């Protein structure tokens, strides 16, 4: 009359039912063992979808703008994680730096922004050809308006190409320091 599967199912239900009933009436989830109330560092206190964040300089100029399809804030780590962040930063001369990456972290005090995964920095100067910098990771330091990586990086501009291991970008001065193993290739005029 009852197949063996059904019998096994009934037995399983018979075992679980009392536990479910007790748990349901008691109204409390399983008590956390006292003394381990420390929140899990991976816990999020807020998140945003399609977030757009704008930062202004003390003088009221647009300093930088961040866009991301998803931002999650981790209070215990004092930072936010950004999915596929994109940023744009105007330069004093009217040019523009645009950056993107697969992921990024912004420290709450804005002292540091880390970008990782297919990082691209596009420089559209006021005059002269555009340039593109690509690398695997890049840390930006807004207070000093510089960026730095120790990873290999490639700069391409107007058909010219320069490769390096490690670099520093000084946005205000529009200056790039290539730290080691520099290989450049230029077109003949």
């Amino acid at each position, binding site marked *: 009359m009852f197949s063996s599967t059904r019998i096994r199912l009934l037995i399983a239900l018979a075992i679980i039912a009392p536990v479910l009933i007790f748990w349901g009436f008691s109204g409390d989830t399983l008590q956390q063992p006292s003394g381990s109330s420390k929140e899990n560092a991976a816990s999020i206190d807020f998140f945003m979808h399609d977030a757009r964040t704008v930062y202004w300089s003390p003088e009221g100029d647009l300093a930088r703008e961040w866009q991301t399809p998803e931002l999650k804030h981790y209070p215990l780590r004092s930072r936010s994680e950004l999915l596929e962040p994109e940023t744009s930063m105007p330069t004093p001369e009217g040019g523009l730096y645009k950056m993107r990456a697969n992921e990024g972290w912004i420290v709450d005090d804005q002292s540091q922004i880390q970008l990782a995964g297919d990082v691209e920095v596009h420089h559209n100067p006021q005059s*002269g050809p555009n340039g593109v910098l690509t690398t695997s990771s890049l840390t930006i330091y807004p207070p000093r308006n510089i960026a730095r990586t120790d990873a290999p990086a490639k700069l391409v501009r107007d058909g010219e190409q320069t490769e390096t291991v490690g670099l520093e970008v000084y946005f205000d001065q529009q200056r790039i320091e*290539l730290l*080691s193993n*520099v290989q450049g290739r230029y077109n003949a*005029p």
Partner: protein
Amino acid sequence: LPEDRSQPIHISANSASINEKTGVTVYSGQVEISQGSMKIRGDRVELYRSADGDVNRIVSIGKPAEFEQQPKASDPVTHAYGLRMEYKINSQQVTISEQAKVEQGQDTFTGERIVYNMDKAIVDAYSSESGDQRVKMVIQPKSSRNGLNP
């Protein structure tokens, strides 16, 4: 070689500094530049651009800086040495200054300043204004060039 000037310019160095405002890039540490058969070496090399962004002038500083190029396939390689070299790409001219020396095959030229025209492989040597660095040339007689004793 005649086709050198249409070749891409390759540069390698320990480090570099790119100034996007001025268009000047400074390479430092075991710098080597090559364009076809032409090579320039130095401790510090400055690369300048014209208004339209093309590389038009290269200054190499070293102890000494070195230059070499084969003017034609049938010619020997020309070597040049000096504490400072300036390579003007459009005019294909290298100006060597401060302890300048050029070697063309077995011939040697020294002076305070030497201007080498790459298209014609012509050497113009100049002494210092004070006169303490005069121009010296050592031109091997043709017979000894062919290995015959006079």
